[in-house]
């Protein structure tokens, strides 16, 4: 009975929980109160302009930086100065990937496996798995200092997954890579995301659109948005329609406009260009709910012919720019 209860508690427990996190470096307030949770298995993109506080949040989670206020837990264990248990469950790729230049790739990975306490019996298999996964087979004998940036990043990733952690924290894993390398690393992250909880930071939008189930946008030390990439984008948009009468008579602009204004989700209707021949065009603005279905149903109901319906979302880029506008004004 007790055990069952414990299991349920473990299942509902988020992989990451951050509450009221604050951190200052001298006079610079890097985090001004950050709260979020990440359930097990989610791939989260941490998005924000430079200096927003992404790295600081990740460093706190990884146990490198100590927060001034607030609590951060990984798998229910508080991170902090003595958080060896929490650190065991984390694979961390710091920004700029500061790994030993002077070591051979294989030696380095062996060393990490040892330091990480991977049991001797499993060490070979784990090393093999990480090497294969990150495509390092061809460079095992090279010094890390000689590797290209892409390969270096793979070594950083291999180092982070060797001990099969529950949580991967990747700070700007694709920064400084060329486009081909970016595609490869993204593919690798997507694969890893199938079985692990991943938090990755980036200041590149397309990165989160392609790889993440959820986006957290941080700006100036605070979270300003949280949701699926589509949801953040879906919030607003415009549907442009061109309608004509189905039964051959000229449609009355006012009447059609009233019909469209009645469609759920539509917040504003503006006339736009029709196609001639008695057709009328309208631009429907919406804030939260995509009205296309309603438009179709209304057209059927009122004997209108839907000649054209075009959907234009506000791009994630626009959302991002709007949410982080203040940062760009700052010097």
């Amino acid at each position, binding site marked *: 009975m007790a055990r069952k209860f414990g299991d349920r508690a473990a299942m509902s427990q988020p992989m990451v929980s951050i509450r009221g996190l604050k951190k200052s*470096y001298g006079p610079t307030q890097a985090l001004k109160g950050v709260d979020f949770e990440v359930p097990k298995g989610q791939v989260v993109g941490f998005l924000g302009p430079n200096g927003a506080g992404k790295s600081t949040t990740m*460093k706190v989670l*990884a*146990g*490198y*930086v*100590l927060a001034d206020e607030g609590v951060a837990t990984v798998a229910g264990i508080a991170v902090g*100065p*003595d958080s*060896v*248990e929490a*650190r*065991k469950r*984390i694979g*961390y790729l*710091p920004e*700029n990937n*500061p*790994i*030993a*230049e*002077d*070591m051979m790739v294989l*030696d380095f990975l062996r*060393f*990490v496996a*040892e*330091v*990480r*306490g991977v049991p001797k019996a499993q060490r070979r298999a784990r090393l093999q798995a990480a090497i294969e996964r990150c495509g390092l087979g061809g460079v095992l004998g090279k010094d890390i200092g000689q590797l290209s940036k892409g390969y270096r990043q793979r070594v950083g990733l291999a*180092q982070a997954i060797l001990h099969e952690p529950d949580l991967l924290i990747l700070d700007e894993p694709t920064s400084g890579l060329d486009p081909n390398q970016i595609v490869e690393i993204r593919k690798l992250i997507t694969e890893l995301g199938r079985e692990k909880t991943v938090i990755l930071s980036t200041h590149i939008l397309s990165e989160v659109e392609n790889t993440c189930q959820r986006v957290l946008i941080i700006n100036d030390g605070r979270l300003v948005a949280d949701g699926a990439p589509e949801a953040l984008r879906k919030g607003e948009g415009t549907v442009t329609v061109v309608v004509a009468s189905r039964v051959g008579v000229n449609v009355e602009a006012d009447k059609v406009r009233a019909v469209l204004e009645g469609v759920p989700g539509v917040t504003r209707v503006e006339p736009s260009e029709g196609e001639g021949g008695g057709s009328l065009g309208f631009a429907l603005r919406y804030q939260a709910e995509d009205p296309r279905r309603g438009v179709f149903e209304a057209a059927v109901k009122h004997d209108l012919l839907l000649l054209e319906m075009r959907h234009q979302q506000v791009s994630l880029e626009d959302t991002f720019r709007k949410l982080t506008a203040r940062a760009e004004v700052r010097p």
Partner: protein
Amino acid sequence: MNGSLAIARRELSAFFNSPIAYIVLCGFLLVAGWLYFSTLFLGGQASLRGFFSIAPVLFVVFAPAVTMRLIAEEKKAGSLELLLTWPLEEWQVVLGKFAAALGLVAVGLAFTLPYAFTVSSLTAQPGTFDWGPVVGGYLGLTLMAASFLAVGLWASAVSKNQIVAFIAGLLLCFALYFVDKVAPLFPDAIGGLLQYLSVDYHFENVARGVLDTRDLLFYASLTTGALLLTTRTLAAARR
């Protein structure tokens, strides 16, 4: 413990993969050899005392040269961030690095053993050579090296810059060596204290082949104290 072992092994192989380690080691052996044989030829004495009386100065330079890189370099390269996010306590990291440094010094010392044998066979009638001072001397050197290395490691934890770490370590070790030399200038009470604080004073006791717990306790507390300080400094890097 396993974590410390992994760190120690990694550092030792890093030592022996870098030319600097060989240069430092060769320098040490050359100077040690010179000290051994110069006392023999110049002084014509049938004793190792000459070497052991100067050896502490050698370690004042050698120990910080061995430790300067150990933490400063990780700070500079940023790899300290990775190190501190591995599931290790800070003391494990410090212990591992210290063990590697001590290992390197032990190798250096082991290479001077042939000198000792040569000198002793040249100077002694078979069966008359007194091994006490040799054993005592090497024990003393090891204890002294350990304390100097611990101090040097702290210097390396304080700075980001290897050279600064070396100079700071050198000055600290020199102070620990020199402090009893100024003891006669002070009143007895202070002089006694200064003497007690001197690494060299205790070394002379041990090197004479007299094992006194007070001397052992001195080295143990100096080494442990410096390592604890290093651990605290390293922990403070978490900001």
